[in-house]
């Protein structure tokens, strides 16, 4: 007998990073690593489950900035070269590790990369979005959208620019997936009362918030976080379940930290002989992760004490963890069913890149979990938020509390003493963009190009990633550079447009670099 619903939500996001001005670029690797380790493995798992006739529903965010990169021919060709290079390296590795404890791992990595290459080049013709779109069209995935560049909405200066981030995101979704989105992942789950009106305007039906948003909402939620609430504008808010999050994320009790799983921080980019590995690194020859890792977590030991990775051991552990996850959900749902007087929905959102990139076995965990849910029990049903809303149309009306899923649950990660210098510049650009849009309501030709590029520069500057990177202290110079570059370009466009002196050559150069959102229309800033 069905006890409740499980909504798995995978949030796939990377900031827009594309540098045609350089033949290779360190931060572009984020995308290439995620393609090999997360996006292709997830597609592979979902396609095979579908082919096996297994019924399941999973929700995925593919953020507009990520979609724009996945669809970009330059980045596709660069990924093609990179995966070819890795296939070459793993071929050598099979020879090099023969008769060592690492032989099975080397073979595993080689097969993985060869499969990734074949799927990328042949099945998906280099555009992974086609794979995700097919899965949505087949009724397996529900893909939801996000604000255009993952802009942190509560810290923007006014509703016009918030609306633009949301609308550009929805339009971009329609471009890539041929339909309008039903749901949105609010960047960083950052909600403040009032945002729901903009979501309703955009025709969206639901969004995701952190637990305390609903638990601290007004009035008190009758069903806790196990049913959505309807905000005053009618759009529904679903809250993250703490328990399932902890089972996967927790540093102490989370699955990915199990001793049998692959250790992320032992990579042959660092371990192999320098001369041997050099041809596979960037041209600067600096060591970096290559995604080939031969050790397992082992336990709380130093990196040099890690033991060899044994694929069969990891596979057994995946099965154990999938069983544990299901048993825990059954207990949780049986209890909740009595408590809330309705079949509960347990909402489990994760960064998609957790699965495969950070937790190598993550996609296989999902594979086993979904199979077991299908074949071995009938109490838990996988569902998406929009499916749930179709089943339960009556939900409590509430104003959720302002919140994020950042540390401490509010805005501190994005506004603090290391990031607050950003906002006066961002707010000025927002103000100026609105001014331009109203001053030139029906521009055409070169002026329209300049205005549209100004809009692109603004949304790229608004990305929440820059403040996040600065706060966390990793790759800080790059985040600062990116924010400043976009503000600089926006400011020059503003000045040139106002002075009626648009430099077409310079504009074309900027258009070729910051080429995201080809469909953007600056008139969105007139409202």
């Amino acid at each position: 007998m069905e006890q409740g619903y499980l909504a798995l939500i995978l949030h796939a996001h990377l900031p827009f990073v594309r540098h045609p001005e350089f033949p290779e670029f360190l931060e572009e690797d984020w995308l290439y690593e995620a393609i090999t380790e997360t996006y292709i493995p997830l597609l592979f798992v979902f396609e095979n489950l579908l082919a096996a006739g297994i019924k399941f529903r999973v929700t995925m965010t593919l953020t507009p900035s990520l979609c724009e990169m996945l669809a970009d021919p330059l980045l596709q060709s660069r990924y093609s070269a990179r995966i070819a290079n890795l296939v070459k390296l793993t071929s050598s590795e099979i020879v090099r590790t023969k008769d060592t404890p690492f032989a099975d791992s080397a073979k595993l990595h080689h097969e993985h990369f060869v499969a990734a290459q074949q799927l990328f080049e042949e099945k998906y013709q280099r555009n992974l979005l086609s794979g995700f779109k097919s899965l949505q069209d087949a009724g397996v995935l529900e893909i939801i959208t996000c604000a255009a560049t993952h802009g942190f909405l509560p810290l923007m200066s006014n509703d016009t620019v918030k609306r633009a981030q949301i609308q550009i995101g929805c339009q971009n979704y329609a471009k890539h997936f041929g339909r309008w989105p039903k749901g949105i992942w609010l960047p960083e789950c950052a909600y403040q009362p009032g945002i729901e009106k903009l979501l309703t305007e955009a025709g969206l039906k639901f969004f995701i918030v952190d637990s305390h948003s609903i638990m601290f909402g007004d009035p008190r939620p009758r069903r806790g976080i196990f049913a959505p609430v309807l905000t005053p504008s009618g759009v529904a808010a679903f809250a993250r379940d703490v328990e399932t999050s902890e089972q996967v994320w927790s540093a102490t009790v989370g699955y990915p930290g199990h001793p049998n799983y692959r250790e992320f921080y032992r990579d042959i980019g660092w371990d192999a002989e320098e001369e041997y590995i050099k041809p596979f690194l960037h041209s600067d020859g600096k060591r970096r992760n290559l995604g080939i890792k031969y050790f397992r977590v082992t336990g709380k030991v130093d990196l040099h004490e890690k033991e060899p990775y044994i694929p069969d051991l990891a596979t057994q552990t995946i099965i154990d963890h999938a069983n544990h996850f299901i048993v825990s959900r059954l207990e949780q749902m049986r209890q909740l069913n009595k408590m809330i007087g309705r079949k509960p929905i347990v909402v489990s959102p994760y960064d998609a890149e957790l699965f495969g990139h950070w937790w190598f076995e993550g996609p296989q965990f999902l594979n086993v979990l979904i199979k077991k849910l299908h074949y071995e029990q009938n109490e838990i049903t996988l569902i998406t938020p929009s499916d749930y809303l179709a089943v339960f149309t009556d939900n409590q009306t509430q104003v959720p509390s302002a919140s994020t899923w950042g540390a401490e649950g509010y805005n501190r990660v994005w506004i603090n003493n290391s990031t607050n210098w950003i906002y006066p510049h961002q707010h000025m650009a927002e103000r100026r963009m609105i001014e331009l849009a109203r001053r030139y309501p029906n521009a055409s030709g070169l002026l329209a190009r300049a205005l549209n590029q100004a809009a692109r520069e603004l949304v790229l500057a608004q990305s929440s990633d820059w403040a996040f990177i600065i706060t966390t202290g990793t790759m800080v110079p790059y985040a600062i550079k990116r924010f400043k570059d976009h503000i600089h370009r926006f400011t020059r466009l503003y000045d040139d447009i106002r002075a009626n002196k648009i430099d077409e050559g310079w504009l074309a150069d900027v258009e070729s670099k910051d080429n995201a959102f080809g469909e953007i229309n600056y008139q969105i800033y007139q409202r």
Partner: protein
Amino acid sequence: MVTSYNPYLTHTTEPIAEVHITELIDEKITKPSQEIFIDKGLDIPETYDIDTIRAMVQDPFHIWVYWNVRPEVFDNLKAIFPTTIAATFFPVLKLTELTYGDVTFIKIVESGDYWLSVFPDRKYRVEVGLYSDERGYIRILEADEVVTPRGTISRNVDPEPEYRIVGKEFVESLQASGFASFAGVIGPDRAMENLPEDVSEVISVVSAGEELNNDQIDNLPPKIRALLKEMQLEGEELTWLSLLHLLPEYLRETIGQFDETFDDALHPHHLSPRFMVGSSKSRPYPKRKPWMPSMTTGALN
């Protein structure tokens, strides 16, 4: 070729010119012999020469405000008054708590920023203006009003019977929702017992509407004491307001050492829980290598 030059991948290796020995010592101290080229991005304006003020919420206890007022705006305003009177005006930030009307003035300069300590679930208005002890306050700029997050459960129960939830039932719901610390809610008496004596004494005095004496201030933790001393120099009222604004944060820190919440049945006040699990944004990954930005975390506490 310029196109093959990637500033992120290249170190500059310019030779060091011959220098006198004393210069070399200085050079060793102040400059590395081989500097890493870091692209700090294109130039952006330092200021924008317009009058502006914005207030932004950080969390239930903090608002950040920045402002810029062109000097001529202040000058033009002062010019209305006779010179002797004009000289008494100085720029201030005015913080108004709109529910109870509490007002705080903070002396400022024409351009800058400020962290304000505030209360949860209140609406605030922040302004920049000129203040004179003799002529009062003149508003120049006003930021959009901001509302701080509740940071706790709502006191309001849904009027619809179907959605009504109170008492023990809601505590169970909180537990099931992962708010474990809410299960063992502690009463205000226990909270007071666990606070340092000097702090609980100050709370009692303030609660009774009485004034603090210097000894009581001296016994407070250094962080609060230093600020109160500074505020005292600017007037009694500011000291009081400052204390009221600082106490919630200090209470949160102190109580957080043994529990994250305290409560009484009629007026529940739950301190902001620390959501340290479950989110990529708070997961304490090892910090050895750069990580995907959407997943990178560090010392965010």
